[in-house]
């Protein structure tokens, strides 16, 4: 199921570490990237073959880590933090807003395959709470209005090739107020 390019990348990762088994997590990242953002069983079987492991061994590792998705996900995975700091700053309002706006519950994907909603634990962006990651890029200081703008931007990016909305990955001035 995996391409020659992916196999070559996994072989290179195996050589990178003192013990080739350490390349299993990089190999799963490579496989997930290649398979549209999740890990089908066949892909894990391919990883097992190139890593000289049993498929069950690979599945057991993949199932331990929350960022390896074992089921298909949308083009954009919205991971909204619901941990302490984000929660006291209104994360549940943000989660409810996204649920309503997209008509999906946490764990579900929209019918058009664009968005998957997940609630996650602390993303280490508590100073900018409530926060979320979209495909591992940070968006902070969320308000319902800002979330709407981000969702519109992502949709335009997917459908019309517009540039994606800018994530909050830049040095924050010391007295950063509202990034919205």
């Amino acid at each position, binding site marked *: 199921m995996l391409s020659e390019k992916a196999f070559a990348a996994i072989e290179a990762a195996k050589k990178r570490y003192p*013990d080739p088994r*350490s390349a299993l997590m990089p190999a799963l990242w490579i496989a997930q990237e290649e398979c549209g953002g999740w890990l089908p069983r066949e892909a894990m079987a391919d990883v097992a073959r190139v890593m000289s492991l049993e498929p069950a061994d690979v599945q057991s590792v993949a199932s331990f880590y929350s960022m*390896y998705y074992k089921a298909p996900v949308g083009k954009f995975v919205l991971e909204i933090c619901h941990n302490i700091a984000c929660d006291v700053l209104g994360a549940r309002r943000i989660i409810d807003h996204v649920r309503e706006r997209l008509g999906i519950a946490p764990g579900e994907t929209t019918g058009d395959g664009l968005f998957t909603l997940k609630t996650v634990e602390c993303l280490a962006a508590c100073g900018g709470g409530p926060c979320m990651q979209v495909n591992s890029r940070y968006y902070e200081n969320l308000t319902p209005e800002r979330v709407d703008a981000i969702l519109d931007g992502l949709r335009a990016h997917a459908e019309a090739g517009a540039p994606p909305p800018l994530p909050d990955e830049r040095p924050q001035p010391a007295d*950063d107020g509202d990034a919205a």
Partner: protein
Amino acid sequence: MPEVKILRKWVHDPEQHRMEVALSRGYYQAARQALTEMKPDEIINLVRDSGVRGRGGAGASCGMKWGFMPKEPTPQRPNYLICNCDESEPGTFSNRELVEYDPHQLIEAIVISAYALRVRTALIYCRGEFLFGYERLNEAVQEARERGFVGEKIFGTDFSLDIIVHRGAGAYICGEETALMDSLEGKRGHPRAKPPFPANVGLYGMPTTINNVETLCNIPHLINHGLEWFWSMGTAGAPPEEPQARANWIKSLGTRKSTGTKILSVSGHVKRPGNYEVVMGTSLRELIYDVCGGICGDHDLKAVIPGGSSMPMIPKPIAMDVQMAFETLQAAGTALGSGGVIVFDDQTDIPQVCLAIARFYKNESCGKCVPCRIGTDWIYKLIQRIVTGQGRMEDIELIRDVCINLGGERMMDSRSYCPLGDAAAWPIIWGGLKYFQHEFEHYIRYRRSPVGAEPALVGAH
């Protein structure tokens, strides 16, 4: 202002991650000096005498950990250095900033530390969610390799070093050092029994030192500025003149005092949340009211979690009168932990905060040992029952009982395989229930929030 700029001096510069910019600010001079003018043991002694303690949560003396590493590793039994960048402690976001915006500070620190520890392969375990930081670290290692700061015969010496950046994939437990090593070995991130300790049997069964990002970032500055400078910041005061007294004073630093600075990640109901680097021993009152501008919306302070979610919260009267250092917070019944300061105003529903804490540990328990796997789930279900209006008065004692069977009768008396179990029990029994039991009772008696909060987020995961 008690804020200082040492580790965070350049993090606001969007160009700081580039090698030329780092070099123009004197980066890698400490590494050059260390490798060409100092013996490995001199560096280990410097780090030990500085009293620098682990910034990741446990607060162990860094020099002491380094002292356990073999002095003459062989090719068959090499030493390893791992930088723990799996920052996942709720409330903490300082490592992320350091690796995203100033990765060369860390790379230089690793070069020096690896030389001191006779390490030829160092690994950085970067949290899976930190994709941006992972990319920045890889670029920085590549730049350092091009300049000859990483690779063969660094600075013309016989010392060679490879640095591997490894990306995790979402598991809080991998921040625990032995689970991290299992994860690096391509396995499920399950903690190992200690002893043997990593300095003896670590990564691939070899001697290994694991240090947090912030701990390591102190090393180049220590080389550049020396001991007296480092000691001048913190709670230890001035060293005595008399040689024996001075030696005893130095010995006590790594366990009984706090030297250097600490980056505190402040979040919650403050006007200016963010990362702030302060001298160890800065008062929490100053941090909240001067540095962070006070509580949002003219509300009053209710409680503070001073060291990440694993550490018990303290109510306002204690918070107003405590210093941010290892020993002072311990005396106040909590801990400095990872330096994640979460501030709660008087409108905060503490049982709901405890629910979020309990849910986190329930979700992140690795499942290897029974007290933690069952205990975290039980604590969560009991608190959930209370905040959804189904609680019974006897539930409070039941929560206490489960917490004691998980985290012990006092702090540091754990019953689980690794500290995650303690971390799940402590904030509930020694924080939430200890100071705010009346709020839990209010929920049970009147079936609604004591502060009129919206219903808790339940079942959204």
